[in-house]
């Protein structure tokens, strides 16, 4: 039988039992759609997180007080112990490295902000002018923290859009004095209303000079120091610079944890890839179930078409040819089902993007190939048994309808 004839013959026989064919297509397409959709969502989540991290700048090196127990740069190091504070003096010393492009110390706390009887609690960030560049913050109006020595506790603040809305409504906040904790401070700028940074909603932030924040929070220590390297190539030099500087200043102890952005990124990337793969594997099980369904239905088909198979043998079809005919049918089923499933999967991803635009739920090419490959593979493998059974039918008994 010629390949095209075999396909035509297979399609005709699939078409002769529509309900059975539709059920099998359904099972196959749901399996493939599940793989495509789930990997798409997993991949989207990965891209989203990677994107969030890269928006911080991959040249970024974060110095956290305290030595992490483990040597690896996992997110777990974010909660390391703090034997000795990082101070502004440390930050100033670190800023002198030639690999440093920008540096900003950070302090974080909760604080009440009040204006003319209106009051609310806000996350307070103490920092310096370079954080604007490092965190890609947008200004809506006014100016950001002035470029000046980080030790100067100038009582000014830059407020988030939501803070501005809630305290001032439609009124102009620039130049107004607000009460921040026990101190008065002048609003010099309003942040643009976009983005989250380091898990904080910039709309709700109040940013003040770091020395002022230390005064407000009554602390000498820093939450962390962000350092941007001149380029990716000098990150190792920068890390050495940080270690030696800190060791020199902390009586020989390297009691800080250094996190590079790309190592965090790589870790997340790895975790999410594995997660996506796991989810794809789970979805793959549904494909195997579909394969078993195909096997069952093919066995039924062989039983129903015993006489036809016997006839084909009497008319000169060998065992291999009978097998090829049935396997062709199964492959047709699984490839058509696979294509429908791809369509469904892509439609599903598209829908997911409509609901969560931030999630770029495009299935990765390998997932498409894997889903189609698995569909064809299961179709092939699970049709072998029924096909072999058909091929071995005794034509005399088969023609008699047994």
């Amino acid at each position: 039988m010629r390949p095209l004839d075999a396909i035509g013959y297979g399609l005709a026989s699939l078409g002769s039992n529509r309900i059975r064919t539709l059920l099998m297509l359904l099972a196959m397409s749901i399996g493939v759609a599940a793989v495509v959709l789930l990997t798409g969502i997993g991949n989207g989540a990965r891209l989203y997180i990677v994107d969030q991290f890269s928006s911080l700048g991959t040249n970024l090196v974060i110095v956290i007080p305290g030595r992490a127990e483990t040597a690896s740069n996992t997110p777990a190091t974010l909660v390391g112990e703090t034997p000795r504070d990082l101070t502004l003096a440390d930050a100033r010393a670190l800023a002198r490295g030639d690999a440093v492009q920008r540096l900003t110390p950070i302090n974080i706390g909760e604080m009440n902000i009040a204006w003319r009887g209106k009051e609310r609690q806000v996350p307070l960030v103490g920092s310096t002018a370079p954080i604007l560049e490092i965190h890609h913050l947008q200004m809506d109006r006014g100016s950001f923290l002035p470029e000046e020595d980080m030790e100067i506790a100038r009582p000014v603040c830059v407020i988030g859009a939501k803070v501005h809305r809630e305290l001032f409504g439609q009124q102009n906040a620039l130049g107004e004095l607000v009460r921040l904790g026990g101190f008065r401070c002048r609003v010099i700028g309003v942040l643009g209303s976009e983005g989250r940074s380091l898990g904080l909603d910039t709309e709700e932030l109040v940013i003040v000079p770091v020395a002022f924040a230390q005064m407000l929070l009554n602390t000498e220590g820093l939450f962390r120091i962000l350092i941007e390297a001149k380029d990716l190539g000098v990150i190792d030099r920068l890390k050495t610079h940080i270690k030696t500087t800190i060791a020199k200043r902390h009586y020989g102890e390297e009691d800080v944890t250094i996190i590079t952005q790309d190592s965090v990124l790589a870790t997340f990337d790895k975790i999410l890839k594995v997660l996506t793969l796991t989810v794809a594997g789970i979805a793959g099980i549904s494909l195997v179930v579909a394969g078993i369904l195909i096997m069952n239905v093919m066995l039924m088909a062989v039983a129903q078409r015993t006489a036809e198979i016997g006839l084909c043998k009497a008319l000169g079809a060998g065992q291999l040819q009978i097998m090829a005919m049935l396997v062709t049918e199964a492959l047709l089923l699984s490839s058509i089902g696979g294509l429908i499933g791809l369509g469904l999967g892509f439609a599903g991803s598209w829908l997911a993007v409509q609901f969560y635009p931030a999630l770029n739920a495009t299935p990765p090419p390998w997932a498409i190939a894997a889903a189609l490959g698995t569909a064809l593979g299961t179709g092939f493998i699970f049709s072998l048994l029924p096909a072999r059974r058909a091929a071995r039918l005794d034509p005399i008994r088969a023609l008699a309808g047994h």
Partner: protein
Amino acid sequence: MIELREVSRIFHVGGQEVRAMDRISLAIQPGEYLSIMGPSGSGKSTLLNTLGLLDTPDSGAYLLQGQDVTSLNDAQLAAVRSRTIGFIFQFFHLIPRLTAQQNIELPLLLAGVSRRERTGRSTPLIEAFGLSDRSNHRPDELSGGQRQRVAIARAVINKPAVLLADEPTGNLDRHSGADIIELLEGLNQGGLTLVVVTHDPEVGERARRQIRVVDGRIAADVRRA
């Protein structure tokens, strides 16, 4: 052309040995018209299936066109069947989802013949068998006689050397049966070897050579003058 030498076929049914063919020797010349008759269970169907290479004898030799076919493997047997043998069955065995023409072309399809050549060979047959206005109908839209005509066309489209018919009129009324026998005899007169297995003495006695099988043996081999 066909020569069976001491061919035996033994079935085991419920612990009992049934000799469906018991050292049968038989020679059939090209162009012969032969009927095989006998009571149920006499072994005439087994004989026909053996001649058609659907069944393999337990012992003895089968020479088909000078070739010993008892030692061929499945693929070789299939190839010989495809080239040499045409089958006609009591129950027609047409594929219900295929049209008359597609059913007729099935052996060519299986043999890998191109569509153009298939049509080229089936069209004259369809005309000769009076099926021109039925060629696009499916079997359930055809009468019994028409179905058997389609089956005969299918059996001869590969230009076989021998046509084996198993009760070709068994499922037809008298009139259609006679019609079909005439068609088969016409093909025989064109040089095709014809072997008919039948219960019906009226059909069997038309053959120029009549074989009677009883208990797996040839009880009579009569040639009409």
